[in-house]
């Protein structure tokens, strides 16, 4: 689940996007990433020592590396409504992911 949301220290890094770092209580897994896939077009670099993914959609993007305890959200024009919707979606997918693990 989401532990903390922090404004990215390097706002400039996303070249116009407003970045937020989402701290998680669990490491990002491949199955979690796949659950987020409906949120945008997926770029996935699976060959890196820690695979990288990015989901991009109109007005926002989500990126992270597998095994890390954080992901980054970029929001165009710092649209808080969009940010809150994405956070809610991520939270919901985390819950589903945990439910699935509990079933096992």
């Amino acid at each position, binding site marked *: 689940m989401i532990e903390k949301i922090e404004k990215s220290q390097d706002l400039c*890094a*996303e070249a116009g996007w407003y970045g937020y770092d989402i701290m998680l209580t669990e490491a990002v897994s491949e199955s979690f990433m796949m659950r987020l896939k409906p949120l945008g077009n997926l770029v996935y*670099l*699976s060959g*890196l020592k820690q695979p990288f993914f990015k989901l991009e959609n109109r007005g926002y993007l989500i*990126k992270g590396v597998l095994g*890390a305890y954080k992901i980054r959200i970029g929001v165009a024009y710092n649209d808080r409504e969009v940010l809150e919707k994405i956070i809610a979606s991520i939270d919901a997918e985390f819950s589903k992911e945990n439910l699935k693990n509990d079933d096992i």
Partner: protein
Amino acid sequence: MNNAATTYPKPASVADAVAKSVCALPSEQGRSTADDSRIIEKCRRQMAALIHAAAPEEIYFTSGATESANLVISGLDLDGGHVVTTVTEHNCILRPLYRRENKTEITCVACDGYGFVRPENIEKAIRKNTKAIFVNHCSNVTGAVQNIEEIGRIAQKHGLLFVVDGAQSLGSILTDVQRAKIDVLIFTAHKSLFGVSGTGGLYIRRGTPVKPVKVGGTGFDSYLVRLPKDYSVFECGTPNVSGISGLSAGLSFLENEGFDNVFCKLGQMTKALAKELSEMPNLELYYKEEASCGAVLSFNIRGLDAADVGYILTNVYGIVLRTGLHCCPLIHEHIHSGKYGTVHISLSYFTTEDDICALKKAVRELCENASAV
């Protein structure tokens, strides 16, 4: 690998000098029975020697390049006139200039695909009412170094003021205000001069018509509530003694190492890295050896946004660098780096062979994987 923003690490002597200053009996230049003025005047002499200024009195300390640029642009009489600048400028120049665009016409001269501006294009942009030329000596995006000696010659030929932003060049490239006929040189301490953030300054050639913008306590002529019009006061208020002490120690470090050795090492490391990067698949490097000798390189990896490359290098490989527009909004259209800017590597005298090997390995892995995108 983000030394163009702020060098890290600093020489130990810089930290020692700042700490010593903080722990010393407080004093202000001209305003205390204790005397810290020696360190300030020493630093002024060191800066003057570095840039070949005629006298230390032509050096003024500020909080950095941005304050210096604002002081100069607000202090020059540009109303109703025209200025020539370049698309390679940092926002520290562009924003103060564009803030007065309803009073002063601005022409931004284009650069080539590597950030180099042809001096003859600057000359072509000069009009009858042109008052000044503003040029970024070394692009903080591509490392392209402008031919300031030729541009200075053009400025002098047309009777124009020549203002140079040396934030990225001082400490890594030879800068001679006499040879380049520079009237105003803006600098910052926290990059290649190894000072601390919040310290910088400007060189103003004696007789250059820049009016002081800030007024306040100066430590002299304190009985006057109005400064005489001919006063050239660019420092007022309590000076940043700790910052200036750090800058002085940074300059002493460079003097001891030998400026030529420092410039040579940075140039060789950058050139060697550029060669290796240019041979990597899917990598586009904005570098032309003839024009670039600053310790800065910019690239993109096809299929990935610059920000993604930076995110991966930091979070997977532990390499800190900078991505995006680098506060230079106009250059990217000309170097064709796209709306997300570039990945930017900047070296320091303290960058090691191991650092460079780790970077090359990571970028190569990324380039090879990017082909799958």
